[in-house]
Protein backbone atom coordinates (compact mmCIF):
# COMPACT_ATOMS: atom_id res chain seq x y z
CA UNK A 1 0.00 0.00 0.00
CA UNK A 2 1.25 3.48 -0.76
CA UNK A 3 1.52 5.81 2.17
CA UNK A 4 2.64 2.95 4.38
CA UNK A 5 6.26 3.23 3.33
CA UNK A 6 9.11 2.77 5.77
CA UNK A 7 11.00 6.00 6.11
CA UNK A 8 14.40 5.22 7.54
CA UNK A 9 15.34 8.92 7.25
CA UNK A 10 18.88 8.13 6.19
CA UNK A 11 20.32 10.75 3.86
CA UNK A 12 20.00 10.43 0.12
CA UNK A 13 18.61 6.97 0.09
CA UNK A 14 15.66 8.03 2.25
CA UNK A 15 15.07 11.05 0.06
CA UNK A 16 15.07 8.91 -3.07
CA UNK A 17 12.69 6.49 -1.50
CA UNK A 18 10.39 9.32 -0.52
CA UNK A 19 10.38 10.65 -4.05
CA UNK A 20 9.64 7.25 -5.46
CA UNK A 21 6.88 6.80 -2.98
CA UNK A 22 5.34 10.10 -3.89
CA UNK A 23 5.45 9.08 -7.51
CA UNK A 24 3.91 5.73 -6.70
CA UNK A 25 1.22 7.38 -4.66
CA UNK A 26 0.50 9.81 -7.48
CA UNK A 27 0.28 6.99 -9.99
CA UNK A 28 -1.94 5.01 -7.66
CA UNK A 29 -4.48 7.75 -7.04
CA UNK A 30 -4.42 9.39 -10.46
CA UNK A 31 -7.22 7.25 -11.96
CA UNK A 32 -9.37 7.92 -8.90
CA UNK A 33 -8.91 11.67 -9.26
CA UNK A 34 -9.75 11.48 -12.93
CA UNK A 35 -12.93 9.66 -12.00
CA UNK A 36 -13.82 12.31 -9.45
CA UNK A 37 -13.16 15.15 -11.86
CA UNK A 38 -16.54 15.39 -13.67
CA UNK A 39 -18.45 15.70 -10.40
CA UNK A 40 -16.03 18.20 -8.92
CA UNK A 41 -16.09 20.24 -12.11
CA UNK A 42 -19.88 20.27 -12.14
CA UNK A 43 -20.02 21.57 -8.58
CA UNK A 44 -17.48 24.22 -9.52
CA UNK A 45 -19.63 25.42 -12.41
CA UNK A 46 -23.08 24.98 -10.97
CA UNK A 47 -22.33 26.09 -7.41
CA UNK A 48 -19.00 27.85 -6.97
CA UNK A 49 -18.99 30.22 -9.95
CA UNK A 50 -22.45 31.61 -9.00
CA UNK A 51 -21.15 32.24 -5.47
CA UNK A 52 -18.63 34.64 -6.98
CA UNK A 53 -21.45 36.10 -9.03
CA UNK A 54 -23.00 37.43 -5.83
CA UNK A 55 -21.02 40.63 -6.43
CA UNK A 56 -23.74 41.37 -8.99
CA UNK A 57 -25.65 42.86 -6.06
CA UNK A 58 -23.21 45.78 -6.17
CA UNK A 59 -23.46 46.30 -9.91
CA UNK A 60 -25.78 47.94 -12.41
CA UNK A 61 -26.48 44.57 -13.97
CA UNK A 62 -27.43 44.33 -17.61
CA UNK A 63 -27.84 41.11 -19.55
CA UNK A 64 -25.68 42.15 -22.49
CA UNK A 65 -22.49 42.79 -20.49
CA UNK A 66 -22.92 39.99 -17.99
CA UNK A 67 -22.07 40.31 -14.31
CA UNK A 68 -18.40 41.09 -14.70
CA UNK A 69 -18.81 43.49 -17.61
CA UNK A 70 -21.59 45.51 -16.00
CA UNK A 71 -20.59 48.81 -14.33
CA UNK A 72 -20.44 49.11 -10.55
CA UNK A 73 -23.41 50.63 -8.79
CA UNK A 74 -22.81 54.15 -7.54
CA UNK A 75 -22.75 54.32 -4.59
CA UNK A 76 -21.89 50.64 -4.23
CA UNK A 77 -24.90 49.95 -2.00
CA UNK A 78 -27.38 51.66 -4.33
CA UNK A 79 -29.35 48.48 -5.16
CA UNK A 80 -29.85 47.85 -1.49
CA UNK A 81 -31.17 51.36 -0.90
CA UNK A 82 -33.78 50.76 -3.58
CA UNK A 83 -34.61 47.36 -2.21
CA UNK A 84 -34.96 48.32 1.44
CA UNK A 85 -36.81 51.57 0.88
CA UNK A 86 -39.47 49.78 -1.16
CA UNK A 87 -42.32 48.20 0.75
CA UNK A 88 -41.45 44.92 -0.96
CA UNK A 89 -38.42 44.13 1.20
CA UNK A 90 -40.44 44.02 4.41
CA UNK A 91 -43.29 42.15 2.78
CA UNK A 92 -41.23 39.40 1.22
CA UNK A 93 -39.15 38.95 4.36
CA UNK A 94 -42.25 38.78 6.54
CA UNK A 95 -44.04 36.35 4.22
CA UNK A 96 -41.03 34.07 3.84
CA UNK A 97 -40.38 33.82 7.57
CA UNK A 98 -43.97 33.61 8.78
CA UNK A 99 -44.94 30.96 6.25
CA UNK A 100 -41.91 28.92 7.21
CA UNK A 101 -42.80 29.11 10.90
CA UNK A 102 -46.36 28.06 10.17
CA UNK A 103 -45.18 25.19 7.97
CA UNK A 104 -42.73 23.95 10.58
CA UNK A 105 -45.33 24.11 13.33
CA UNK A 106 -48.19 22.51 11.42
CA UNK A 107 -46.27 19.82 9.56
CA UNK A 108 -44.21 18.70 12.52
CA UNK A 109 -46.91 18.66 15.19
CA UNK A 110 -49.46 16.94 12.96
CA UNK A 111 -46.72 14.81 11.43
CA UNK A 112 -45.78 13.48 14.86
CA UNK A 113 -49.42 12.81 15.77
CA UNK A 114 -50.03 10.97 12.51
CA UNK A 115 -46.80 8.99 12.90
CA UNK A 116 -47.87 7.85 16.36
CA UNK A 117 -51.28 6.79 15.07
CA UNK A 118 -49.83 4.93 12.10
CA UNK A 119 -47.28 3.16 14.31
CA UNK A 120 -49.98 2.09 16.72
CA UNK A 121 -52.35 0.67 14.11
CA UNK A 122 -52.33 -3.09 14.49
CA UNK A 123 -53.51 -4.16 11.05
CA UNK A 124 -50.45 -4.38 8.83
CA UNK A 125 -52.43 -3.88 5.68
CA UNK A 126 -54.20 -0.76 6.94
CA UNK A 127 -50.85 0.60 8.06
CA UNK A 128 -49.47 0.20 4.56
CA UNK A 129 -52.47 1.91 2.97
CA UNK A 130 -52.20 4.91 5.29
CA UNK A 131 -48.48 5.23 4.74
CA UNK A 132 -48.81 5.05 0.97
CA UNK A 133 -51.57 7.63 0.88
CA UNK A 134 -49.73 10.10 3.05
CA UNK A 135 -46.48 9.97 1.09
CA UNK A 136 -47.92 10.08 -2.42
CA UNK A 137 -48.59 13.83 -2.73
CA UNK A 138 -44.94 14.44 -1.82
CA UNK A 139 -43.94 12.98 -5.18
CA UNK A 140 -46.11 15.30 -7.27
CA UNK A 141 -44.80 18.26 -9.22
CA UNK A 142 -46.01 21.70 -8.21
CA UNK A 143 -47.55 22.11 -11.67
CA UNK A 144 -49.87 19.17 -11.04
CA UNK A 145 -50.60 20.52 -7.56
CA UNK A 146 -51.51 23.87 -9.07
CA UNK A 147 -53.94 22.13 -11.44
CA UNK A 148 -55.67 20.44 -8.54
CA UNK A 149 -55.86 23.66 -6.55
CA UNK A 150 -57.24 25.40 -9.64
CA UNK A 151 -59.94 22.75 -9.98
CA UNK A 152 -60.96 23.54 -6.43
CA UNK A 153 -60.68 27.31 -6.49
CA UNK A 154 -61.26 28.52 -10.04
CA UNK A 155 -63.72 31.41 -10.23
CA UNK A 156 -65.97 30.07 -12.96
CA UNK A 157 -66.06 26.35 -12.42
CA UNK A 158 -64.07 25.56 -9.30
CA UNK A 159 -65.54 22.91 -7.05
CA UNK A 160 -65.67 25.24 -4.07
CA UNK A 161 -67.57 28.00 -5.85
CA UNK A 162 -69.87 25.71 -7.86
CA UNK A 163 -70.69 22.89 -5.48
CA UNK A 164 -69.60 23.52 -1.91
CA UNK A 165 -70.29 27.17 -1.14
CA UNK A 166 -73.86 27.03 -2.60
CA UNK A 167 -74.60 24.18 -0.19
CA UNK A 168 -74.14 26.63 2.65
CA UNK A 169 -75.91 29.40 0.79
CA UNK A 170 -72.70 31.37 0.37
CA UNK A 171 -71.72 33.60 -2.54
CA UNK A 172 -68.84 32.52 -4.80
CA UNK A 173 -65.46 34.00 -3.89
CA UNK A 174 -62.84 34.95 -6.45
CA UNK A 175 -60.07 33.17 -4.62
CA UNK A 176 -57.22 34.29 -6.86
CA UNK A 177 -58.03 37.89 -5.94
CA UNK A 178 -58.59 37.42 -2.20
CA UNK A 179 -55.27 37.84 -0.39
CA UNK A 180 -56.51 37.03 3.12
CA UNK A 181 -57.50 33.50 2.05
CA UNK A 182 -54.02 32.51 0.91
CA UNK A 183 -52.24 31.91 4.21
CA UNK A 184 -54.83 29.23 4.96
CA UNK A 185 -54.75 27.80 1.43
CA UNK A 186 -50.95 27.63 1.27
CA UNK A 187 -50.61 26.10 4.73
CA UNK A 188 -53.19 23.47 3.77
CA UNK A 189 -51.52 22.74 0.42
CA UNK A 190 -48.12 22.53 2.05
CA UNK A 191 -49.51 20.19 4.71
CA UNK A 192 -51.13 17.99 2.09
CA UNK A 193 -48.00 17.81 -0.03
CA UNK A 194 -45.31 17.78 2.62
CA UNK A 195 -46.56 16.09 5.80
CA UNK A 196 -45.67 12.61 4.51
CA UNK A 197 -41.99 13.47 4.46
CA UNK A 198 -41.61 14.26 8.16
CA UNK A 199 -44.16 11.63 9.10
CA UNK A 200 -42.07 8.92 7.49
CA UNK A 201 -38.99 9.95 9.42
CA UNK A 202 -40.97 9.94 12.66
CA UNK A 203 -42.42 6.51 11.90
CA UNK A 204 -38.89 5.17 11.34
CA UNK A 205 -37.80 6.78 14.59
CA UNK A 206 -40.72 5.27 16.54
CA UNK A 207 -40.01 1.85 15.00
CA UNK A 208 -36.56 2.05 16.59
CA UNK A 209 -37.92 2.18 20.15
CA UNK A 210 -37.48 -1.02 22.12
CA UNK A 211 -40.88 -2.73 22.44
CA UNK A 212 -39.93 -4.15 25.84
CA UNK A 213 -40.15 -0.67 27.35
CA UNK A 214 -43.80 -0.44 26.34
CA UNK A 215 -44.55 -3.90 27.74
CA UNK A 216 -42.96 -3.05 31.06
CA UNK A 217 -44.89 0.20 31.32
CA UNK A 218 -48.07 -1.64 30.42
CA UNK A 219 -47.56 -4.12 33.23
CA UNK A 220 -47.06 -1.19 35.59
CA UNK A 221 -50.49 0.00 34.51
CA UNK A 222 -49.58 2.92 32.27
CA UNK A 223 -52.40 4.30 30.13
CA UNK A 224 -52.17 4.89 26.38
CA UNK A 225 -51.59 8.60 26.88
CA UNK A 226 -48.87 7.89 29.42
CA UNK A 227 -47.14 5.56 26.98
CA UNK A 228 -47.13 8.29 24.35
CA UNK A 229 -46.13 11.05 26.76
CA UNK A 230 -43.44 9.17 28.66
CA UNK A 231 -41.99 6.78 26.10
CA UNK A 232 -42.80 7.65 22.47
CA UNK A 233 -42.39 11.42 22.55
CA UNK A 234 -39.15 11.53 24.56
CA UNK A 235 -37.65 8.84 22.31
CA UNK A 236 -38.23 10.76 19.10
CA UNK A 237 -36.92 14.09 20.41
CA UNK A 238 -33.59 13.73 18.56
CA UNK A 239 -35.38 13.25 15.22
CA UNK A 240 -37.63 16.21 15.96
CA UNK A 241 -34.66 18.43 16.77
CA UNK A 242 -32.81 17.37 13.64
CA UNK A 243 -35.79 17.94 11.37
CA UNK A 244 -36.93 21.20 12.93
CA UNK A 245 -33.41 22.62 12.95
CA UNK A 246 -32.96 21.64 9.33
CA UNK A 247 -36.13 23.56 8.52
CA UNK A 248 -35.26 26.54 10.71
CA UNK A 249 -31.91 26.87 8.97
CA UNK A 250 -33.80 27.21 5.69
CA UNK A 251 -36.26 29.77 7.01
CA UNK A 252 -35.04 32.44 4.59
CA UNK A 253 -35.82 30.26 1.59
CA UNK A 254 -39.19 29.26 0.20
CA UNK A 255 -40.51 26.69 -2.20
CA UNK A 256 -40.68 28.69 -5.44
CA UNK A 257 -43.32 26.39 -6.94
CA UNK A 258 -45.64 26.65 -3.96
CA UNK A 259 -45.63 30.44 -3.98
CA UNK A 260 -45.43 31.06 -7.71
CA UNK A 261 -47.25 28.22 -9.39
CA UNK A 262 -50.01 27.42 -6.91
CA UNK A 263 -51.29 31.05 -6.67
CA UNK A 264 -51.02 31.22 -10.49
CA UNK A 265 -48.68 34.22 -10.26
CA UNK A 266 -51.80 36.30 -9.62
CA UNK A 267 -50.90 39.95 -8.95
CA UNK A 268 -53.92 40.65 -6.77
CA UNK A 269 -52.66 38.34 -4.04
CA UNK A 270 -48.94 39.24 -4.00
CA UNK A 271 -49.34 40.77 -0.56
CA UNK A 272 -49.72 37.29 0.96
CA UNK A 273 -47.96 35.14 -1.62
CA UNK A 274 -44.83 37.09 -2.52
CA UNK A 275 -41.70 35.58 -0.95
CA UNK A 276 -38.01 36.28 -1.50
CA UNK A 277 -37.74 33.55 -4.13
CA UNK A 278 -40.73 34.68 -6.17
CA UNK A 279 -39.57 38.30 -5.87
CA UNK A 280 -36.10 37.42 -7.18
CA UNK A 281 -37.59 35.54 -10.11
CA UNK A 282 -40.11 38.20 -11.05
CA UNK A 283 -37.61 41.04 -10.78
CA UNK A 284 -35.14 39.14 -12.94
CA UNK A 285 -37.29 37.69 -15.68
CA UNK A 286 -40.63 39.49 -15.66
CA UNK A 287 -39.88 43.06 -14.60
CA UNK A 288 -36.45 43.12 -16.21
CA UNK A 289 -34.78 44.55 -13.15
CA UNK A 290 -31.74 42.31 -12.62
CA UNK A 291 -29.98 44.70 -10.21
CA UNK A 292 -32.88 44.62 -7.79
CA UNK A 293 -33.16 40.88 -8.18
CA UNK A 294 -29.44 40.50 -7.50
CA UNK A 295 -29.71 42.61 -4.35
CA UNK A 296 -32.61 40.53 -3.03
CA UNK A 297 -30.77 37.33 -3.91
CA UNK A 298 -27.64 38.52 -2.13
CA UNK A 299 -29.70 39.40 0.94
CA UNK A 300 -31.22 35.91 0.89
CA UNK A 301 -27.93 34.06 0.37
CA UNK A 302 -26.03 35.90 3.08
CA UNK A 303 -28.73 35.96 5.75
CA UNK A 304 -29.58 32.36 4.88
CA UNK A 305 -25.96 31.31 5.32
CA UNK A 306 -25.63 33.15 8.64
CA UNK A 307 -28.81 31.40 9.80
CA UNK A 308 -27.44 27.97 8.90
CA UNK A 309 -24.27 28.65 10.87
CA UNK A 310 -26.17 30.11 13.82
CA UNK A 311 -28.65 27.27 14.06
CA UNK A 312 -25.89 24.73 13.84
CA UNK A 313 -23.84 26.49 16.52
CA UNK A 314 -26.90 26.49 18.76
CA UNK A 315 -27.53 22.78 18.26
CA UNK A 316 -23.86 22.00 18.83
CA UNK A 317 -23.99 23.77 22.13
CA UNK A 318 -26.99 21.89 23.48
CA UNK A 319 -26.85 18.48 21.86
CA UNK A 320 -23.73 17.89 19.90
CA UNK A 321 -24.81 14.62 18.32
CA UNK A 322 -27.68 16.35 16.51
CA UNK A 323 -25.54 19.04 14.88
CA UNK A 324 -25.43 19.07 11.09
CA UNK A 325 -21.68 19.53 11.06
Amino acid at each position, binding site marked *: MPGMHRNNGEGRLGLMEKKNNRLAKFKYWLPVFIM*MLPGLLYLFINNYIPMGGLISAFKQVNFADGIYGSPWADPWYKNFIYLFTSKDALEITRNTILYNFAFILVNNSLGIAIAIF*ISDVQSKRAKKVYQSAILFPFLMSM*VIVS*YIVFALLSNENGMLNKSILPLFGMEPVSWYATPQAWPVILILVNFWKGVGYGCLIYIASIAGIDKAIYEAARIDGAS*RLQLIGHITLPSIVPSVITLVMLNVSKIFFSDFGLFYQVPQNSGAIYSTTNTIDTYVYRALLQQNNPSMSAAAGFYQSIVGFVLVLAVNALVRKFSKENALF
Partner: protein
Amino acid sequence: MLKTRENRRYQILCNVVLALLTIFMVFPFALLFMSSITEENTLIMNGYSLFPRKLSLEAYKYIFQNGQKIFHAYGVTIFVTVAGTCINLWMSSMLAFGLSRKNLPFRRVITFYVFFTMLFNGGLVPTYMMYTGTFHIKNTIFAMIVPNLLMSAVNVLLVRTYFTNSIPEALYEAAEIDGAGQMRIYFQVALPLGKPILVTTGLFAALGYWNDWTNGLYYVNQEQFWGIQNLLNKMISDVQALTSGLMSKEMAGMIATMPSVSVRMAIAFVAMLPILAVYPFLQKYFAEGIAMGAVKG
Protein backbone atom coordinates in the same frame (compact mmCIF):
# COMPACT_ATOMS: atom_id res chain seq x y z
CA MET B 1 -50.74 -6.92 22.26
CA LEU B 2 -53.17 -6.60 25.11
CA LYS B 3 -56.77 -6.97 24.13
CA THR B 4 -58.19 -4.53 26.62
CA ARG B 5 -61.22 -2.39 26.03
CA GLU B 6 -59.07 0.72 26.06
CA ASN B 7 -56.91 -0.70 23.34
CA ARG B 8 -59.87 -1.59 21.18
CA ARG B 9 -61.24 1.91 21.49
CA TYR B 10 -57.85 3.36 20.69
CA GLN B 11 -57.59 1.19 17.57
CA ILE B 12 -60.94 2.48 16.38
CA LEU B 13 -59.87 6.07 17.01
CA CYS B 14 -56.59 5.57 15.10
CA ASN B 15 -58.31 3.98 12.15
CA VAL B 16 -61.05 6.56 11.90
CA VAL B 17 -58.61 9.47 12.04
CA LEU B 18 -56.26 7.87 9.55
CA ALA B 19 -59.06 6.87 7.20
CA LEU B 20 -60.26 10.48 7.11
CA LEU B 21 -56.70 11.60 6.50
CA THR B 22 -56.34 9.09 3.67
CA ILE B 23 -59.46 10.49 2.04
CA PHE B 24 -58.05 14.00 2.40
CA MET B 25 -54.81 12.87 0.75
CA VAL B 26 -56.39 10.96 -2.12
CA PHE B 27 -59.43 13.11 -2.85
CA PRO B 28 -57.51 15.76 -4.87
CA PHE B 29 -56.21 13.08 -7.24
CA ALA B 30 -59.69 11.66 -7.59
CA LEU B 31 -60.94 15.15 -8.46
CA LEU B 32 -58.21 15.51 -11.08
CA PHE B 33 -59.06 12.17 -12.64
CA MET B 34 -62.83 12.65 -12.54
CA SER B 35 -62.55 16.07 -14.19
CA SER B 36 -60.54 14.52 -16.98
CA ILE B 37 -63.37 12.12 -17.78
CA THR B 38 -66.18 14.64 -17.33
CA GLU B 39 -68.08 15.67 -20.41
CA GLU B 40 -66.90 19.14 -21.46
CA ASN B 41 -70.23 21.00 -21.25
CA THR B 42 -71.07 19.42 -17.92
CA LEU B 43 -67.72 20.63 -16.66
CA ILE B 44 -68.37 24.18 -17.79
CA MET B 45 -71.94 24.20 -16.48
CA ASN B 46 -71.55 22.44 -13.15
CA GLY B 47 -67.87 22.95 -12.45
CA TYR B 48 -65.25 20.41 -11.39
CA SER B 49 -66.83 17.65 -9.40
CA LEU B 50 -66.12 14.23 -7.93
CA PHE B 51 -69.47 12.91 -9.17
CA PRO B 52 -70.08 14.50 -12.55
CA ARG B 53 -73.51 14.17 -14.20
CA LYS B 54 -72.10 13.02 -17.51
CA LEU B 55 -68.91 11.14 -18.25
CA SER B 56 -66.93 11.18 -21.46
CA LEU B 57 -63.62 9.95 -22.74
CA GLU B 58 -63.42 12.70 -25.36
CA ALA B 59 -60.47 14.34 -23.64
CA TYR B 60 -58.31 11.22 -23.90
CA LYS B 61 -59.48 10.65 -27.45
CA TYR B 62 -58.45 14.19 -28.28
CA ILE B 63 -54.99 13.63 -26.79
CA PHE B 64 -54.46 10.49 -28.85
CA GLN B 65 -55.73 12.02 -32.06
CA ASN B 66 -54.33 15.55 -32.07
CA GLY B 67 -51.70 15.34 -29.42
CA GLN B 68 -48.44 15.66 -31.38
CA LYS B 69 -47.45 18.60 -29.19
CA ILE B 70 -48.28 16.66 -26.07
CA PHE B 71 -46.45 13.53 -27.18
CA HIS B 72 -43.46 15.61 -28.14
CA ALA B 73 -43.34 17.25 -24.70
CA TYR B 74 -43.79 13.84 -23.09
CA GLY B 75 -40.89 12.53 -25.15
CA VAL B 76 -38.70 15.44 -24.08
CA THR B 77 -39.50 14.71 -20.44
CA ILE B 78 -38.65 11.03 -20.88
CA PHE B 79 -35.40 11.82 -22.66
CA VAL B 80 -34.36 14.44 -20.11
CA THR B 81 -35.23 12.11 -17.22
CA VAL B 82 -33.28 9.17 -18.61
CA ALA B 83 -30.24 11.14 -19.75
CA GLY B 84 -30.13 13.31 -16.63
CA THR B 85 -30.48 10.37 -14.25
CA CYS B 86 -27.76 8.37 -15.99
CA ILE B 87 -25.27 11.24 -15.94
CA ASN B 88 -26.25 12.02 -12.38
CA LEU B 89 -25.60 8.46 -11.20
CA TRP B 90 -22.38 8.19 -13.16
CA MET B 91 -20.89 11.43 -11.83
CA SER B 92 -22.00 11.07 -8.25
CA SER B 93 -21.00 7.42 -7.90
CA MET B 94 -17.49 8.10 -9.21
CA LEU B 95 -17.07 11.10 -6.95
CA ALA B 96 -18.43 9.13 -4.01
CA PHE B 97 -16.12 6.22 -4.82
CA GLY B 98 -13.08 8.47 -4.45
CA LEU B 99 -14.36 10.12 -1.29
CA SER B 100 -15.07 6.76 0.31
CA ARG B 101 -11.41 5.68 0.09
CA LYS B 102 -9.81 6.19 3.46
CA ASN B 103 -6.32 6.96 2.17
CA LEU B 104 -7.32 9.37 -0.58
CA PRO B 105 -5.02 12.43 -0.46
CA PHE B 106 -6.88 15.68 0.40
CA ARG B 107 -9.92 13.64 1.34
CA ARG B 108 -11.13 16.09 3.99
CA VAL B 109 -10.67 19.13 1.79
CA ILE B 110 -12.56 17.59 -1.11
CA THR B 111 -15.36 16.38 1.15
CA PHE B 112 -15.71 19.90 2.50
CA TYR B 113 -15.73 21.26 -1.05
CA VAL B 114 -18.74 19.02 -1.77
CA PHE B 115 -20.45 19.65 1.56
CA PHE B 116 -20.13 23.43 1.42
CA THR B 117 -22.42 23.62 -1.61
CA MET B 118 -25.21 22.46 0.71
CA LEU B 119 -24.71 25.41 3.03
CA PHE B 120 -24.28 28.31 0.69
CA ASN B 121 -25.34 29.16 -2.83
CA GLY B 122 -25.24 32.09 -5.18
CA GLY B 123 -28.94 32.14 -5.97
CA LEU B 124 -30.84 32.67 -9.18
CA VAL B 125 -29.29 35.82 -10.65
CA PRO B 126 -25.64 34.73 -10.87
CA THR B 127 -26.69 31.21 -11.91
CA TYR B 128 -28.95 32.54 -14.60
CA MET B 129 -26.39 35.04 -15.89
CA MET B 130 -23.69 32.39 -16.02
CA TYR B 131 -25.72 29.73 -17.78
CA THR B 132 -27.19 32.12 -20.34
CA GLY B 133 -24.26 34.51 -20.74
CA THR B 134 -21.20 32.26 -20.50
CA PHE B 135 -22.54 28.87 -21.50
CA HIS B 136 -25.36 30.00 -23.82
CA ILE B 137 -27.67 27.19 -22.86
CA LYS B 138 -30.82 29.25 -23.38
CA ASN B 139 -33.18 27.35 -25.67
CA THR B 140 -31.13 24.20 -25.91
CA ILE B 141 -31.85 20.75 -24.53
CA PHE B 142 -28.96 21.24 -22.09
CA ALA B 143 -31.04 23.86 -20.28
CA MET B 144 -33.45 21.10 -19.32
CA ILE B 145 -30.70 18.80 -18.03
CA VAL B 146 -27.72 20.69 -16.65
CA PRO B 147 -28.73 23.44 -14.18
CA ASN B 148 -29.07 22.28 -10.57
CA LEU B 149 -30.39 18.79 -11.25
CA LEU B 150 -27.36 17.04 -12.68
CA MET B 151 -25.79 16.24 -9.33
CA SER B 152 -26.59 16.92 -5.70
CA ALA B 153 -24.10 17.05 -2.88
CA VAL B 154 -26.53 15.25 -0.58
CA ASN B 155 -26.65 12.25 -2.87
CA VAL B 156 -22.89 12.19 -3.31
CA LEU B 157 -22.42 12.11 0.46
CA LEU B 158 -25.11 9.46 0.90
CA VAL B 159 -23.44 7.20 -1.64
CA ARG B 160 -20.04 7.87 -0.13
CA THR B 161 -21.24 6.89 3.33
CA TYR B 162 -22.81 3.75 1.94
CA PHE B 163 -19.59 2.77 0.16
CA THR B 164 -17.52 3.45 3.30
CA ASN B 165 -19.79 1.37 5.50
CA SER B 166 -20.50 -1.55 3.24
CA ILE B 167 -17.22 -2.12 1.42
CA PRO B 168 -14.37 -3.19 3.69
CA GLU B 169 -10.90 -1.89 2.83
CA ALA B 170 -9.70 -5.50 2.66
CA LEU B 171 -11.87 -6.04 -0.37
CA TYR B 172 -10.06 -3.27 -2.24
CA GLU B 173 -6.72 -4.70 -1.19
CA ALA B 174 -7.70 -8.15 -2.39
CA ALA B 175 -8.80 -6.72 -5.73
CA GLU B 176 -5.50 -4.85 -6.03
CA ILE B 177 -3.49 -7.96 -5.30
CA ASP B 178 -5.42 -9.64 -8.07
CA GLY B 179 -4.12 -6.89 -10.30
CA ALA B 180 -7.29 -4.85 -10.74
CA GLY B 181 -6.92 -1.14 -11.53
CA GLN B 182 -9.02 1.53 -9.86
CA MET B 183 -11.39 1.70 -12.80
CA ARG B 184 -12.00 -2.00 -12.57
CA ILE B 185 -12.47 -1.86 -8.81
CA TYR B 186 -15.07 0.84 -9.28
CA PHE B 187 -16.97 -1.20 -11.85
CA GLN B 188 -16.61 -4.65 -10.34
CA VAL B 189 -16.52 -4.01 -6.60
CA ALA B 190 -18.06 -0.63 -5.73
CA LEU B 191 -20.95 -0.48 -8.19
CA PRO B 192 -22.34 -4.00 -7.57
CA LEU B 193 -22.06 -3.62 -3.80
CA GLY B 194 -23.54 -0.12 -3.88
CA LYS B 195 -26.61 -1.11 -5.88
CA PRO B 196 -29.22 -0.41 -3.17
CA ILE B 197 -28.07 3.15 -2.56
CA LEU B 198 -27.70 3.81 -6.28
CA VAL B 199 -31.27 2.68 -6.90
CA THR B 200 -32.52 5.02 -4.17
CA THR B 201 -30.55 8.09 -5.19
CA GLY B 202 -31.23 7.38 -8.86
CA LEU B 203 -34.94 7.24 -8.13
CA PHE B 204 -34.88 10.66 -6.51
CA ALA B 205 -32.81 12.09 -9.35
CA ALA B 206 -35.34 10.73 -11.84
CA LEU B 207 -38.23 12.13 -9.83
CA GLY B 208 -36.48 15.51 -9.79
CA TYR B 209 -36.23 15.52 -13.57
CA TRP B 210 -39.72 14.23 -14.16
CA ASN B 211 -41.27 16.90 -11.94
CA ASP B 212 -39.02 19.79 -12.89
CA TRP B 213 -40.57 22.78 -14.57
CA THR B 214 -38.28 25.56 -13.30
CA ASN B 215 -35.41 24.96 -15.72
CA GLY B 216 -37.86 25.19 -18.59
CA LEU B 217 -39.37 28.33 -17.08
CA TYR B 218 -36.02 30.06 -16.61
CA TYR B 219 -34.09 29.00 -19.66
CA VAL B 220 -36.44 27.89 -22.42
CA ASN B 221 -39.06 29.81 -24.35
CA GLN B 222 -39.23 27.60 -27.42
CA GLU B 223 -41.84 24.91 -27.16
CA GLN B 224 -39.76 22.26 -28.89
CA PHE B 225 -37.58 21.87 -25.78
CA TRP B 226 -40.39 21.91 -23.27
CA GLY B 227 -41.20 18.93 -21.14
CA ILE B 228 -44.71 17.95 -20.18
CA GLN B 229 -44.63 20.02 -16.99
CA ASN B 230 -43.72 23.16 -18.94
CA LEU B 231 -46.52 22.53 -21.41
CA LEU B 232 -48.98 22.17 -18.54
CA ASN B 233 -47.60 25.30 -16.93
CA LYS B 234 -48.08 27.25 -20.16
CA MET B 235 -51.63 26.04 -20.59
CA ILE B 236 -52.77 27.07 -17.15
CA SER B 237 -51.07 30.47 -17.26
CA ASP B 238 -52.79 31.11 -20.59
CA VAL B 239 -56.13 30.37 -18.96
CA GLN B 240 -55.30 32.76 -16.13
CA ALA B 241 -54.38 35.52 -18.57
CA LEU B 242 -57.55 34.86 -20.55
CA THR B 243 -59.90 35.06 -17.59
CA SER B 244 -58.19 38.07 -16.05
CA GLY B 245 -58.64 39.94 -19.34
CA LEU B 246 -54.94 40.64 -19.69
CA MET B 247 -54.83 39.17 -23.15
CA SER B 248 -55.39 40.72 -26.54
CA LYS B 249 -58.28 39.53 -28.71
CA GLU B 250 -56.13 37.69 -31.22
CA MET B 251 -54.21 35.91 -28.47
CA ALA B 252 -57.52 34.91 -26.93
CA GLY B 253 -58.64 33.56 -30.30
CA MET B 254 -55.54 31.39 -30.48
CA ILE B 255 -56.20 30.03 -27.02
CA ALA B 256 -59.75 29.12 -27.93
CA THR B 257 -58.37 26.49 -30.30
CA MET B 258 -56.15 25.12 -27.55
CA PRO B 259 -57.16 22.11 -25.46
CA SER B 260 -60.17 22.79 -23.32
CA VAL B 261 -60.82 22.25 -19.64
CA SER B 262 -61.20 18.47 -19.50
CA VAL B 263 -58.30 17.96 -21.91
CA ARG B 264 -56.03 20.00 -19.66
CA MET B 265 -56.98 17.81 -16.74
CA ALA B 266 -56.40 14.70 -18.85
CA ILE B 267 -52.89 15.88 -19.73
CA ALA B 268 -52.16 16.57 -16.09
CA PHE B 269 -53.33 13.08 -15.24
CA VAL B 270 -51.20 11.55 -17.98
CA ALA B 271 -48.20 13.52 -16.65
CA MET B 272 -48.56 11.99 -13.19
CA LEU B 273 -49.44 8.53 -14.47
CA PRO B 274 -45.87 7.13 -14.56
CA ILE B 275 -45.33 8.06 -10.92
CA LEU B 276 -48.65 6.49 -10.00
CA ALA B 277 -47.71 3.37 -11.96
CA VAL B 278 -44.32 2.77 -10.34
CA TYR B 279 -45.30 3.95 -6.86
CA PRO B 280 -46.59 0.62 -5.51
CA PHE B 281 -43.38 -1.15 -6.52
CA LEU B 282 -40.88 1.51 -5.54
CA GLN B 283 -42.53 2.91 -2.44
CA LYS B 284 -39.98 1.11 -0.27
CA TYR B 285 -37.12 2.94 -1.97
CA PHE B 286 -38.86 6.30 -1.74
CA ALA B 287 -39.39 5.77 1.97
CA GLU B 288 -35.81 4.63 2.51
CA GLY B 289 -34.45 7.59 0.60
CA ILE B 290 -36.39 10.03 2.72
CA ALA B 291 -35.33 8.39 5.96
CA MET B 292 -31.69 8.47 4.84
CA GLY B 293 -31.79 12.04 3.60
CA ALA B 294 -32.76 13.14 7.06
CA VAL B 295 -29.69 11.77 8.76
CA LYS B 296 -26.58 13.74 8.17
CA GLY B 297 -24.39 12.69 5.28
